[in-house]
């Protein structure tokens, strides 16, 4: 099944090549060079995973992560970082990141994480749907 991915990084060249390689692996990739733009894309589109650089102008990864989670709690976000420290990793995971990957990332390993994200999101959405159905059934006394 095709995974829908939003790739966010202020390095245009990195975005283009990474997206090309991901598309060659049958992923549907949208790119964005800013967290602000990514936030508006997330508001209107559906993605299985968001791969986002930790250090970006205007809004850093943690701020963006929190803003996305507030809008779409089910969104699976993988943060990319130039320097992965334990402190940053803990901060990211606490804020709801699915994973924290150091640059330069291995695409095969990242693809595996995207597949997991896809699965995880599907489970969350299914649970949400079930909860809605149960709620409706309760409402109608069934």
């Amino acid at each position: 099944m095709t995974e829908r991915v939003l790739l966010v990084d202020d390095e245009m060249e990195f975005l283009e090549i990474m997206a090309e390689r991901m598309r060659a692996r049958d992923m549907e990739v949208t790119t964005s060079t800013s967290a602000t733009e990514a936030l508006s894309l997330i508001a209107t589109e559906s993605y299985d995973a968001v791969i986002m650089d930790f250090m970006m102008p205007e809004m850093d990864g943690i701020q963006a992560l929190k803003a996305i989670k507030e809008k779409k709690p089910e969104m699976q976000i993988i943060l990319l970082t130039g320097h992965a420290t334990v402190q940053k990793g803990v901060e990211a995971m606490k804020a709801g990141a699915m994973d924290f990957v150091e640059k330069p990332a291995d695409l095969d390993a990242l693809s595996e994480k995207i597949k997991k994200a896809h699965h995880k999101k599907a489970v969350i959405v299914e649970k949400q749907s079930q909860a809605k159905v149960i709620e409706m059934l309760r409402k109608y006394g069934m």
Partner: protein
Amino acid sequence: MTDESRLLAVDGVRFFGVMSASISHEIKNVLAIIKENAGLLEDMLAMNAKGIPLDPERLTRLAQSIDRQVARGDGVARNMNRFAHSADHPSETVDVHETIRFVIDLADRLIAMKGRPPRIEAVANPVTAVTSRFFLERLIWACLWQALEVCAPEETISVVAEKTGAVVRIRFQGVAEDFFTTGAPFPSPGEAAVCRMLGARLSADENAKEIVIVLN
């Protein structure tokens, strides 16, 4: 070690750390792009092994991208090296304009991380001073950062060095009103120690909208 020299050492190491972290982030970004290019080449070769012909135009663009990133990485490494050697001599003859340009270049990524930073121009005016190169860079960055914190994207910060007799002035012009009205804690204790060490003075003129480093 006296309290003053400890303050100076801590401030210096902190400045070195901020710049080094920014530089290493940039190097990581360069490496990430080169790695993706190598990965793309592997992908293309794997597809070629399955009978899909190689696209010479795509290969050319790939080689150009690697070339660009190597040149970028080289520039970053050169700056890193130059910065590391800033502390070689406690005092030397420094081209002040060149030092201003260097600090702006060195901090390029930190400036970009502000999102939509104001324009920064270093007005060419050859002026020399006998001082500590490293701590002068520190003080220039301190003033520039203050200006960056308050200036809007459409504004311009002009940095110009002037010499009158033995006195050198580095003017940061176009500093937005907020700097003078919000009363931000500037200079910090470490920056004040740098001033004392350099025999420098910082002044702020609200009417002229400028911060000035005065080197005697």
